[in-house]
């Protein structure tokens, strides 16, 4: 890979903007880009969603497979999340095996869903000890203009609410809606120009510092956290973004629950 140019000018520009409480595209500190969420958009998936945040566009497709349960949990199905950063979605994405970035995204999205308990893995049991469903989330970027984390996270929970267990195709009973008990929502913040902002676009991502990913459930319960990239933050900064996360997660949960 070519040496990335040190984006010192970009950083200086973003700092200068931040000092005047501004962002490169005119948004406020906690303001997201224009958002659209559609479900049922993939003909071959058992559940699907398309999320667009500004020029960032992603799909999440849900597929089910049969598997044998683990001996120590004979009545529980499984969950798997894969995030593919294909070079289709941006000049900066190199082809090749999964990058550390894509592994991190997949694992962060996975934990947000898994740890919330929104899927009761016992609901995935077909025959105890023999056959259970595995739910596979495939997150797939079409256009990466920054903050795939939140786009993937939102697409995943929306696709889950849209999913149908394909009993007939696998000859294990009738098709039925996958029970989803909760709506965990991920909100992420990045330090840009010395302060945290919500939903940084690619320009801010390149010229910014550390990110913090927060997944919240009902009653502001915390389900998952992740700090990524180089950077130091204080307890009071964390209190500030946690407050912003609580508000935004609640707005996004309403959108998902109303689909």
């Amino acid at each position, binding site marked *: 890979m070519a040496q990335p140019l040190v984006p010192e000018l970009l950083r200086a520009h973003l700092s200068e903007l931040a000092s005047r409480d501004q962002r490169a595209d005119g948004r406020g500190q906690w303001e997201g880009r224009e958002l659209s969420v559609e479900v049922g958009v993939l003909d071959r998936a058992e559940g699907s969603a398309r999320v667009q945040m500004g020029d960032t566009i992603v799909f999440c497709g849900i597929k089910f497979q049969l598997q044998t349960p683990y001996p120590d949990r004979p009545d529980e199905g499984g969950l798997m999340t894969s995030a593919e950063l294909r070079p*289709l979605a941006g000049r900066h994405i190199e082809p090749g095996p999964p990058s550390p970035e894509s592994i991190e995204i997949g694992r962060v999205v996975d934990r947000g869903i898994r740890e919330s308990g929104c899927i009761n893995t016992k609901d995935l049991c077909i025959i105890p000890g023999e056959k259970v469903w595995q739910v596979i989330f495939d997150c797939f970027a079409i256009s990466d203009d920054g903050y795939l984390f939140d786009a993937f996270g939102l697409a995943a929970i929306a696709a889950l609410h849209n999913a149908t267990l394909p009993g007939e195709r696998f000859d294990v009973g009738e098709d039925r809606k996958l029970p989803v008990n909760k709506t965990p929502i991920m909100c992420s913040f990045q330090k840009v120009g010395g302060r945290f902002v919500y939903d940084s676009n690619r320009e801010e991502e390149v010229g910014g510092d550390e990110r913090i990913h927060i997944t919240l459930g009902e009653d502001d319960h915390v389900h998952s956290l992740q700090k990524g990239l180089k950077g130091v933050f204080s307890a009071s900064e964390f209190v500030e973004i946690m407050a912003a996360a609580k508000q935004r997660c609640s707005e996004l949960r309403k959108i998902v629950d109303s689909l």
Partner: protein
Amino acid sequence: MGYGDVQMIDENGNRVDGRKAGDIRPIEIEMGVVPVADGSASMRWGTNYVIASVYGPMEAHPRKIQRQERAVLDVRYNMAPFSTTDRFRPGFNRRSREISKVTADALESVVLLELYPRSKIRVEIEVICAEAGTRCVGLTAASLALADAGIPMTDMVVSVASGKINGIVVCDLNKEEDNYGAADLPMGVLPNTGELVFLQMDGDLSPSEFQEAWDYNMDAALKIHELMKEAIANKYGGGQ
């Protein structure tokens, strides 16, 4: 029950989806679907859904892949994991490698690579939903994305496949027909000259059946080319 025993065409010559032997499936083209790319296009063709994006010309690195006298064309065809009925496992795949290679061979035949020495043009083809004929859809979508990126070409490439079911030669097999088909002849045609840059074939065709399939493809390519010209004109204001 053998392959030949399923009746896929009725006594009136109607196919399972109502088409006649020479008809193609419905096609919808959208230009510029990947906002961050230098060029992009999507095709919905039957229930196929394929997106192609183009990046470049850009610096070719590492330097060892550079060619002094022309650009290198880096083409990738890939199936998304949710594109097939059974999940398609990501990773190395001989079929995808081969399709990437023949697609690159076809596009290199029309792109004016010598205009961009020492540079690289990336062409990315992603199959989002697969029905039948994804390699043809991918190649055609890639030539649209190249046009959208403003990369000069001697001609567009239009790709379509004819095949044989129940002993009858038909154009543009859909998924059910493909499952029971006895032959498949995908071609990549330059609509302005009638020349070819892509050709594969599998199965069994007598010399006369082969000619019939060839002719269907040539005819269909011209029809699809009209849709492509229209989509480009719509985007760039030359239309209507």
